[in-house]
């Protein structure tokens, strides 16, 4: 009974926090985006804006929601957004939502698969390394992993294209699928192999190393000794005992790593000419396409904030101690999460 009311209260609290974060985020981005020098009208009209009269310009601003003080613009934007109208993309000259819709799927598929693979592999690698801490194999994996992580993703992409598309001709160099094959799964997978490889190689070690270190901390805890004195094998201890205990941390890392992996799709999309919102967001920022930018930021924001809420619930299921404290996902993870 009491548990239930606590749960409801918690959910309400989370949702409120969620809304508040999105509000703050949108205000901040809205404001900062508009600080940039350069005329958004130029994105819309191109160089023709030069020859427009000031009345024409004013009229255009009103039409595009670019008139009045920023606060006024924001209020207009948010009240429209609340009704599902995210405004016109200045560059693409159609509703921002329409620009995003055909592309978001691509990014989610690419990012999602990369995300799953990165973490699946990272966990496997981390478990392996933790079990073989400080042996030659662990050291080699650490060194190779570090190097792979530091190879600039764009560079790696180009090298892969050169080898696998140009020289060997095994894999396509660009796009999401071949012409007319949008429903052909094998074809889609083929197109994803290279971008995925780049994304995995450039993220894998970051997370593998993080998880490995968490596991190393864990195998220094006393319960490991108890498990060992029970007669458990090394792998049983690491997988059944330690891994379970770092799982909440991993879930948290996963929750906050979404923007990181998304950043990865930016580069993969650029290198492999893979249509998606990654490349789109770069363009939208460069072209002062405010509405598009806001929409993209809102989408990633929603994904991150909601996934950290989900992460918290998952964690409570794994580890009931978490219920006692309101842990923010961000506090839990170590290392810098840049890029």
């Amino acid at each position, binding site marked *: 009974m009491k548990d239930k009311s606590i749960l409801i209260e918690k959910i309400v609290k989370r949702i409120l926090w969620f809304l508040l974060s999105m509000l703050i985020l949108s205000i901040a981005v809205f404001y900062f985006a508009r600080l940039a020098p350069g005329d958004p009208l130029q994105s819309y009209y191109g160089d*023709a804006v030069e020859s427009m009269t000031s009345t024409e310009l004013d009229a255009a601003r009103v039409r595009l929601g670019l008139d009045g003080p920023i606060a006024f613009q924001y209020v207009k934007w948010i009240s429209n957004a609340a009704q599902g109208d995210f405004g016109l993309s200045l560059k693409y000259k159609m509703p921002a939502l329409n620009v995003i819709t055909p592309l978001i799927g691509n990014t989610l598929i690419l990012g999602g698969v990369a995300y799953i693979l990165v973490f699946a592999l990272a966990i496997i690698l981390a478990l392996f390394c933790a079990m073989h801490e400080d042996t030659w194999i662990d050291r080699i994996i650490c060194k190779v992993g570090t190097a792979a992580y530091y190879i600039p993703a764009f560079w790696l992409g180009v090298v892969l294209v050169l080898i696998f598309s140009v020289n060997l001709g095994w894999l396509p160099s660009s796009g999401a699928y071949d012409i007319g094959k949008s429903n052909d799964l094998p074809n889609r997978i083929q197109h994803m192999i290279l971008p995925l490889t780049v994304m995995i190689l450039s993220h894998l070690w970051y997370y593998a190393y993080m998880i490995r270190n968490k596991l190393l901390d864990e195998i220094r805890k006393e319960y490991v000794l108890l498990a060992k004195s029970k007669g458990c094998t090394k792998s049983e201890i690491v997988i059944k005992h330690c891994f379970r205990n770092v799982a909440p941390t991993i879930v948290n890392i996963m929750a906050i790593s979404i923007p990181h992996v998304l950043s990865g799709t930016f580069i993969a999309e650029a290198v492999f000419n893979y*249509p998606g919102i990654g490349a789109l967001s770069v363009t939208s920022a460069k072209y002062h396409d405010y509405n598009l930018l806001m929409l993209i930021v809102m989408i990633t924001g929603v994904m991150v904030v909601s996934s950290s809420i989900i992460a918290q619930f998952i964690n409570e299921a794994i580890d009931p101690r978490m219920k006692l404290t309101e842990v923010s996902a961000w506090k839990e993870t170590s290392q810098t999460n840049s890029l």
Partner: protein
Amino acid sequence: DKKSTDGSDLSNTLVYAGEADESINPIINKSELSNIIFSGLMKYDATGQPIVDLAESYTYDEGSMTYTFKLRNGVKWQDGEPFTAQDVVFTYDKLTKDTTLSASVLSNYTDITKVEAIDDKTVAITLSQFNAAMLNNFTIGIIPKHLLDGQDLTTASFNQNPVGTGRYKFVEWDKTGATITLEKNEAYYDKIPNIDRVVYKTVAVENTKALMLESGEADLAWLNANYAEKFRGKDGYTNIDFTTADYRAVSMDYRTDFWINNKDSVGVLNDAIDKDAVVKSVLNNEGCTAYSPIQLNAFGGNTAADIYSYDLNKFAQEMQTLGWVKGDDGIYERNGQKFHFTIQVRDYEEERIDIANVVSKQLKEAGVDMEIVLVTKFDWKSGYNGFLSGYAVEFDPDALYAQFTTDGSANTMKYSNPVVDNLLTQARHEKDVTARKDLYGQFEVAFSQQPASVLIAYLDGNYVSISGLKGLDTKRVLGHHAVGVMWNIEDWTLSK
């Protein structure tokens, strides 16, 4: 047959890799696709002369300054609706009356005072004064009234779903796959193309186009000279090198104080730039040095305008004459002002960055500090002193009017030279062709003496295709970014 409709049989589909486009609409922007989906009253022939297209014939009445177009019979929009004079009126009304529209072509049509449909198949267009380039301007594609009436042309969903009267009809814009599919217009009123379908793949990065050609994902693409070089002599590929009227220049922004004060010192920069070296290195010799903006136009090419040459001694002398003195850092100074100016260069155009780099270095050695700022889109408000420009005047030289006359609609550099204004206005309204050519020749000289920009080089249009693609005709001088390659697409054949 069924195979060709399921989309995966590409044996008679031309895959073209090109730059990304936001909308396909001849009024908003001229692109390869809008050229073949839409058709205008007139079109260009192989030599770049306007000939009739949707119009069966036309007459010009000098007294009333009225063009009367007789339209073809039986032309249908690609959605099946009949094409009528109302569509023409609608299009030209848009071009002349719609205030929400702001396209760079608009100033070509300011001379039009009245457009009316005399009957279903006849349109009369009245001008305020004679305009020698008007027939050129009538090549603009006609848009369907029944689909666009009452809509905002800039944002209409039509732009992503165009319906025209051209050789190819729009099938699908697959944004997820970044392809635009066209199918040949079986109901086309003229020669129906051989190639069933054209798939336009939009590509953001230049080298991707080359990669796609290499890996067989594209059949035809325009590459920069360096990438095109890779395919030369390679099995299975053909290099098709067009001449283009596309030149690169360092254009100055005369709004900025620096050039207001130093207008006299633009031309002299030509002497300090080894344009040959630029052509050889950056352009891989695919192009030529430039001295006039209409050097390769039928009306241009007055060698008398070629008054500069790479000569550092001469440069030094000229600079001295102009009153510039070298400072301690090796940079010229005058009236306490360094010869330092900034130019903006768009970051996605490799050859422009390279040109800017080399030119900047050469100028630096001569004592002029040209600073390069990379931008994604040109910004006219941040006070840069210039930009690395590219223009092409491939058809009527009247295009110069918008660019170089004071207050011209494309005069982004705010260049103002009364002599040029005068010559270009005269030429615009000159009916006699030789007299016109003479006027443009004079313009070239006048321009050279007080140039708006330091012209560097003309670029060749280096297309690369798979060997199975035949029929591309290099007779035509192409435009900016080598646009116009598909001018005779109906004659192309493809075998893969």
